[in-house]
């Protein structure tokens, strides 16, 4: 939607939008931490391996998942000795599975030979002379596993059919047999010979590849579910490291209309960028990197710079107060100015301000020259900066709310932001700051 279209102004909605923007940006950080964690513990590779083992586990026969991980196509994808590939292309999976199944068409045995003569039967019945025994050698013999095979070298498709036939009856065997049946095609060796059925191996590979891709789609949902705990821990780490107190942020956004307005303006840019990127890529969801680029683009825009400059001027005016507590107010506001948001660890901010022995500082009184709206904001800071059990509980609750919110992930918050901006734009257009001042 065009940002110039009619919209309605509601401080509560704007507060929610501001908060959602903060969550959207910080949850990118959470995603980066979890990604790093997964990379270190090879979590994606291990998860993929478990899922492939589960898919191809046939208790009656073998775990073909284990076999395909031994296959050179897959094993060569490992970065180091004990790692697993993070991703298996469908074609590689299909080839490795077909080879592993076809391998069963033959059995290797070692038989007793005298020169080129197979004397294994005589060896078994112990009817060889001592001189003959002295010349014996065990040689490798590869023979078809299934009975009734001609013993000739089989064509790849026939080898696969024979390999599946060699399996004991199981669910997986039925599934593979169905795959094979569906991909048989009529074949004529020459114009005069009768029609015969032969496996269309390329078509079969395609079908196995689709089957694997469908399964992987379902697995990616399971993987995300598994990541919840990690996301929560990373969310908590970000919340505590950056001191993201959601209750405090909400209050500040409600009390500080200027900050709220600049945040909403930025949220609109981010949401527009997000929608544009989705349209450009033709996808419903964006990766962490893409979301980061959306956020950066919005923050780097010229319009953003103008808002920042305007805001800095306002903050300077606010602090032009001749009062004994100027310095302290300046410190609080300088923090807001430097971060643009009341985040981070600062000696004039809770919880540091609760511990004067550790350098924490408090606002003792609100300068009378402050306007009521500014006074309310500073009053909130003053109250919050006092060390008390109630404040501690509120701060902890704020951190935990932030942790949980950040664990929902950047895609969720970007989507929420986009929807909220649309709601905001559906009412009458709000007055700008200049219009209100006039």
């Amino acid at each position, binding site marked *: 939607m065009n940002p110039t279209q009619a919209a309605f102004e509601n401080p509560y909605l704007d507060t929610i939008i501001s908060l959602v923007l903060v969550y959207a940006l910080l949850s990118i950080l959470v995603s980066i931490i979890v990604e790093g964690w997964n990379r*270190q*513990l*090879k*979590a994606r590779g*291990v998860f993929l391996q*478990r899922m492939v*083992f*589960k898919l191809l*586990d046939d*208790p009656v*026969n*073998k*775990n073909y998942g*284990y*076999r395909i*991980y*031994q296959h050179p196509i897959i*094993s060569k994808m*490992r970065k*180091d*000795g*004990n790692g697993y590939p993070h991703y298996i292309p469908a074609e590689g999976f299909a080839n490795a599975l077909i080879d592993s199944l076809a391998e069963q068409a033959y*059995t*290797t*045995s*070692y*038989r*007793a*030979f005298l020169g080129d003569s197979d004397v294994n039967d005589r060896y*078994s019945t*112990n009817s060889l002379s001592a001189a003959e*025994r002295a010349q*014996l*050698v*065990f*040689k*490798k013999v590869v023979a078809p596993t299934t009975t009734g095979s001609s013993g000739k070298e089989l064509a790849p498709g026939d080898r696969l059919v024979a390999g599946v036939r060699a399996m004991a009856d199981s669910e997986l065997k039925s599934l593979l047999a169905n795959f094979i049946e569906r991909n048989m095609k009529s074949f004529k060796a020459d114009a005069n010979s009768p029609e015969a059925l032969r496996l269309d191996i390329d078509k079969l590979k395609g079908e196995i590849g689709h089957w694997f891709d469908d399964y992987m789609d379902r697995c990616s949902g399971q993987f995300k579910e598994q990541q919840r705990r990690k996301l929560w821990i990373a969310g908590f780490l970000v919340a505590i490291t950056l001191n993201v107190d959601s209750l405090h942020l909400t209050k500040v956004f409600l009390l500080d209309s200027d900050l709220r307005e600049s945040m909403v303006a930025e949220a609109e840019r981010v949401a527009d960028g997000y929608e544009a990127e989705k349209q450009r890529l033709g996808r419903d969801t964006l990766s962490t990197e893409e979301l980061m680029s959306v956020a950066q683009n919005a923050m780097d825009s010229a319009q953003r710079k103008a808002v920042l400059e305007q805001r800095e001027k306002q903050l300077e005016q606010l602090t032009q107060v001749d009062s004994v507590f100027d310095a302290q107010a300046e410190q609080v506001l300088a923090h807001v100015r430097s971060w643009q948001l009341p985040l981070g660890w600062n000696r004039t901010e809770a919880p540091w301000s609760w511990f004067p022995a550790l350098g924490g500082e408090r606002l003792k009184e609100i300068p009378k020259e402050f306007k009521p709206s500014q006074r309310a904001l500073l009053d909130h800071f003053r109250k919050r900066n006092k060390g008390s059990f109630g404040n501690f509980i509120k701060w902890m609750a704020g951190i935990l709310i932030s942790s949980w919110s950040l664990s929902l992930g950047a895609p969720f918050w970007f989507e929420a932001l986009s929807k909220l901006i649309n709601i905001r734009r559906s009412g009458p257009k709000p007055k700008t700051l200049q219009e209100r001042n006039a």
Partner: protein
Amino acid sequence: MPRITNIHSHIFTGRCAPDYFFRMALPSWADRWADEIKAFLEKRWMRRLIKFFASRRGNSQLLRYLQFIEVGTQSTQEEVFTSMQRAYAALGADTRFVALTLNMDHMDTQPSGHARIDDQLAEAERVRSHFPDALFPFLGVDPRHKQGADLLGWAREKIDRRAFFGIKLYPSIGFFPFDPALDQLYDWAEQEQVPVMTHCTRSGTYYTGSMSNVLPNMRPPTLNPAAAKQMDSIYKRIGRFRESDFTWKDSKYGCNIFLHPENYEPVLHKYPDLKLCFAHFGGDDEMLPAKFKQPLREKGIDATNWHDEIKRIMGLLDDSGRPMYENVYADISYTLSNKDVYPLLNTLMRTPLAGRILFGTDFFMTVREKSEAELLQQCTTNLENGHFQRMAAANTTDYLRSRIYDPEVPFA
């Protein structure tokens, strides 16, 4: 000239072990973080970091443990095998290795996504096809996997085509060696002289679930009810294990019941010519009882010294004064890592049992104690008068020889 054979080694990888297996190697306080610790230790940089600090602090035990993990976490059996083979370069290129596969599918009722026994065997067979004259795997057998004729058919198919050369039992995983499900397999193994190797030391892998799953009653079925005297003694011991909280609640100690050497007497009573090897010779803790604490002995649950018990079974004589069980062997694997056992081994090699004591190392379990090359060096240095040659070449050749495989015949 018989070739040197390491009769007891392992090449299976961490992928073959159940997901809960790693917990057994950890102290109990670290149990709940097993998955995370495993993931970290599998990282080479993490092991290097720990090694750096451990070497600065002179913590050799930790260093060896990391080495053990390093071998176990290699991704293929071929990598494990070749790393063992390299240590034997000094002995010549024709050393043979018996790799014991292990069926770990029934170690607990917990779900696990590991590579099961058939997958482990298929991989071992593939490695063997690359080293046909060097690698001689044994089949890991568990009566809960297959029973009776089914088990026999499964094992026979593999041994008849010389992909595998013997049978490996690991009773502490939760079964008795006198389980009737093994009867037909023993019968065939005795006829064909196919060697059987069984774990026989109080330490090692064990069933990690509840003892009630694997020891549901006082009188488990036996393949040889005729051996009433032996079974009576076994049943009495089972009663003591079930009554004691120490063994009933902690399967680490409880699973000793499955390993007791006396459990093989009903089997040998029925199949006296069965080629059976007691691995580890009861263990160094049983060979040197004065140096080790034995909780089950101290608590009066099981006072038997397993090393003495194995020697007793090996030395049993019939009414005519001939050995009753001439095909019962013992190997010195893992036990050989303790320097103090060598005087005892030298003494044993001067007794009539000398022809039935086998050399094996228990690679890669022993990496926790010493490197394979160090073990080999220690063994050849401390065994006197050609004892090493006899244990590692002549005796192992006799043990491996069956009606299916003649160790004198090379593989092309």
